[in-house]
């Protein structure tokens, strides 16, 4: 029990204050539990996205292999000059609020431009590569969000556990103790009053 609670004066006013504090703490715990549930749901949704990583990676490797095959077939001069016709994608990293938690997220400012590329094979492969990269960006965003949400969930769990196992029991114990003291003092006062009345009569 914290010292502040231990040395509280036993009075009805303190009891009212402590009961109000207990009610507020319990309400806070309920709200945190609701938030925890909300975060768990969000995490489950994110896990479903993150689960796609192996298939996205597989797709990416397949496209990269296909591009490497074309690169070998065409030769470096041909390939590098054709590749120079594709403009690079522009990406940004922004801090986005995800269920109230700030999470860094990759945002695509502009996809790669292959308008100048007239080679149907490389154009197809470039589109497939971007598709795989965009999916990977989505998975990475989900992973980043998952990491931050999991850390936040861990924090909420610690707070809820602290409230549930330490603060609330301590408050209850202090209220019980103070109630007993107040009752004892009231009884003592009543007895004293009775004795004083008996002496005077």
């Amino acid at each position, binding site marked *: 029990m914290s010292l502040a609670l231990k040395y509280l004066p036993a009075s009805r006013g303190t009891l009212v204050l402590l009961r109000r504090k207990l009610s507020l703490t319990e309400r806070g715990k309920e709200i945190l539990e609701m938030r925890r549930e909300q975060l768990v749901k969000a995490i489950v949704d994110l896990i479903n996205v993150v689960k796609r990583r192996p298939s996205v990676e597989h797709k990416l490797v397949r496209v990269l*292999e296909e591009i*490497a*095959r*074309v*690169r*070998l*077939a*065409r*030769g*470096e*001069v*041909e390939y*590098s*000059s*054709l590749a*120079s*016709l*594709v*403009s690079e994608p522009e990406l940004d990293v922004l801090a986005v609020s995800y269920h109230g938690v700030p999470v860094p997220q990759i945002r695509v400012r502009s996809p790669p431009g292959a308008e*100048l590329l*007239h*080679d*149907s*094979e490389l*154009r*197809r*492969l470039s589109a497939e590569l971007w598709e795989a990269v965009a999916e990977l960006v989505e998975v990475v965003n989900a992973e980043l969000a998952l990491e931050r949400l999991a850390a936040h969930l861990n924090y909420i769990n610690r707070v809820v556990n602290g409230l549930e196992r330490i603060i609330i029991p301590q408050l209850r114990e202090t209220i019980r103790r103070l109630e007993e003291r107040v009752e004892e003092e009231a009884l003592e006062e009543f007895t004293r009053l009775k004795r004083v009345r008996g002496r005077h009569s």
Partner: protein
Amino acid sequence: MIEYLIVRTIGLRLHLLSPDDYERLIKGEVELEDLPEYRSLVTAKAEEARLRAVHTKFVERASLLLKVCDSHAPFVRAFLDRLEVENVRARLRGVLSGADPPYYYPYSHFIDLEALVRARSLDQVMRLLRGTPYEVRVRRGAPAGVLEMALDSAYFAYYRKEARRSGLKCLVPLIDREALARLLYWTLRLGELAVVGERRLLRGFEPASLSVRLRPPLLDRLARFFRLDAEQLRRMERHGEVSRAVRVAEERVADAARRSFLRERYAPIAVYYYLLLCYNEMRNLERILLGKMLGLRPELVRGAVLMVPL
């Protein structure tokens, strides 16, 4: 004099890499600098230095033939000029994209390579092409693909002309095959309708000695010529699988050259076959080096290498 050139190329052929050498390179048992032919050319351990050594070797080999025989030099030079055409094509793409392609072949003949690399606009490139055999005339605003096809068309017309000028008319059917393989690439890349529509550009690809008419259905005609399945080619065209089809056509060109060479070993075909083998070695080594650079599985690299028996 052609006899001397033929005998030299037959001897020089023995210096080319064998399928075993390729296999050892793919497996990583030897590096390029371990091969005696390339030892002195590899100046650094970097892949780019190795790539440059491979290209330089091809240029050196063809240049040696140029020194050996003056009267047939135009043909050898024209064969070598395909590298220059590739450089021009790379520069054209660089001009279009505004980005500098990182790599060019270390070769120039009609156009100074430095001036070409410095060219910053389409007009500048066209000015450099003026007066050369690759001068192209396309309608204003023609797509980049058509411009590149025009470049190939001009090159094959020049290549054929130079073979005739060198007294090597017998090589024209093989040049025609090469031109048709390239036309197959353009047909798959631009689409049959677009290619057939460019009648003027088809002239350079028009075979002078083979009975293939460049009219619709062009893809079927080319498929028949290269013994390919027309339906499969159409599927490749639809799915944008150009490389696979072009690779088969390249194999057919090499096969035809080999068959001609085996029929007449001591004929001018030996010179063409030697040059083709040198070019093939350059492409194969490029593929192996790139495969290693990209960390590809050996079987993938092996599949890309075109094994032509010496």
